[in-house]
């Protein structure tokens, strides 16, 4: 469903992505981890063209993202994305946040969109907050709204860019629970995260990145059982032993 073909990206002379090739199959959950600055977020943002890249290509649903003249807006409407800092629209109520792209991009009627949004809010346990503004919600609640906003577009895949790293510890699980449920339903997911518990529970594959390179790309059991590279071993020992 998503395929990276030798993607390279530079900021000026600094190379942030080096020849990255990997894939996410339909219904797979792939967790991307690695030290900060390793290019994980940049990699995931290449999928919907939020980060342009200079070499290689990303193929989503047999459409090229890197090709000049690619219809990025149409592609993006099909891929949900959840950000580290939620990025809900603060001047709109929760329900308006969910309705906006449904009506403006997909052309759904207001009633249709509201029905869809209400069902999704119920699913993430926030139907009572539909009329509130994002600023009135906790971080965990905001992130669940953000997930619902992505799902409202009936996406073929969901991208998560460190969805829990801006949250207070006690709110992490309410967000992870929603994500686990999604994974169990068979949603195709690419998740940049340090939540190894989540990866153990639902990931099919784990990608480990360091300094812009994909160092390790292995099944979950392989990765946690016996990581091949030393860098992955060091990283794992750092984040697992505390």
């Amino acid at each position, binding site marked *: 469903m998503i395929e990276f073909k030798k993607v390279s990206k530079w900021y000026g002379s600094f190379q942030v992505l080096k020849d990255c090739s990997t894939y996410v199959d339909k219904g797979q959950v792939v967790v991307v981890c690695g030290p900060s600055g390793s290019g994980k977020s940049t990699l995931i943002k290449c999928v919907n063209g*939020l980060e342009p890249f200079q070499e290689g290509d990303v193929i989503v649903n047999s459409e090229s993202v890197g090709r000049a003249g690619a219809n990025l807006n149409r592609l993006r409407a099909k891929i*949900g*994305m959840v950000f580290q800092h939620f990025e809900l*629209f*603060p*001047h709109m109520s929760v329900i308006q946040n969910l309705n906006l*792209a449904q009506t403006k*991009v997909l052309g759904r009627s207001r009633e249709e969109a509201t029905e869809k949004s209400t069902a999704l809010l119920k699913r993430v346990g926030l139907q009572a907050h539909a009329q509130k503004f994002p600023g009135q919600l906790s971080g965990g609640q905001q992130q669940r709204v953000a997930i619902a906003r992505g799902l409202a577009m009936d996406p073929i895949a969901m991208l998560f860019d460190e969805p829990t790293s801006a949250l207070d510890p006690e709110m992490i699980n309410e967000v992870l629970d929603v994500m686990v449920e999604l994974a169990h339903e068979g949603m195709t997911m690419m998740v940049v995260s340090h939540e190894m518990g989540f990866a153990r529970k639902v990931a099919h594959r784990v990608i480990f990145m360091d300094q812009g390179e994909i160092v390790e790309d292995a099944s979950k059991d392989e990765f946690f059982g016996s990581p091949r590279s030393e860098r992955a071993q060091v990283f794992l020992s750092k984040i697992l032993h505390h």
Partner: protein
Amino acid sequence: MFSGYDFDVIRRSLPYLFREGMTFTVTLTLMAMTGGIIFGTLLAMMRLSRFKVLGLVAGGYVNLMRSIPLVLVIFWFFFLVPYIGAWIIGADQPVAVGAFLSCVITFTMFEAAYYSEIMRAGIQSIPRGQVAAGQALGLNYWQSMGYIVLPQAFRNMLPVLLTQTIILFQDTSLVYVISVTDFLGAAAKIANRDYRLVEMYTFVAVVYFIICFSLSYLVKILQRRIAIVR
């Protein structure tokens, strides 16, 4: 102390001052504000555009307007607009634009330069992530701007926009140079006709002060309310 002054002239001329003069001043202010903010927002979007040429054109325009005295711009437009109009529609005679329309165009064009700087700061104050979130949902540039960036930028900048409008309200008095009867112009006519300069100009100053001071006060209250909402 006030013998020799006739303050009753103010009472007698009130209907004329407000019905003619103040109406003009307020209408001009509101129209120039609306036009200026719309045009200024477009200029700001051009300056922040990734197309360099648009940025240069808008930047040049803003810097030009901000470097010329307003009085000069008023004169310049008053005498030039009829010729531009003729050139656009291809007439061989200058088009009679009328003082009012000429004023509206002048103030819109001039104030747009200032409003655009405010809106530029407002747009830049919106975190990049907000635009990314809009893009990720499939919204195009105009939709992201219209539904996400501009409403927030506008709300954040509302106090500053209103403060600029208060300045605009005062600046409209400069239309006296092309003999237009705004509030000040109306008072000046009475003052000269009845030779009551001190009375009339004092009154005008008091009225401007009261209006602008109360508006500034309202802006301050508004500023506090916006700060709470955020």
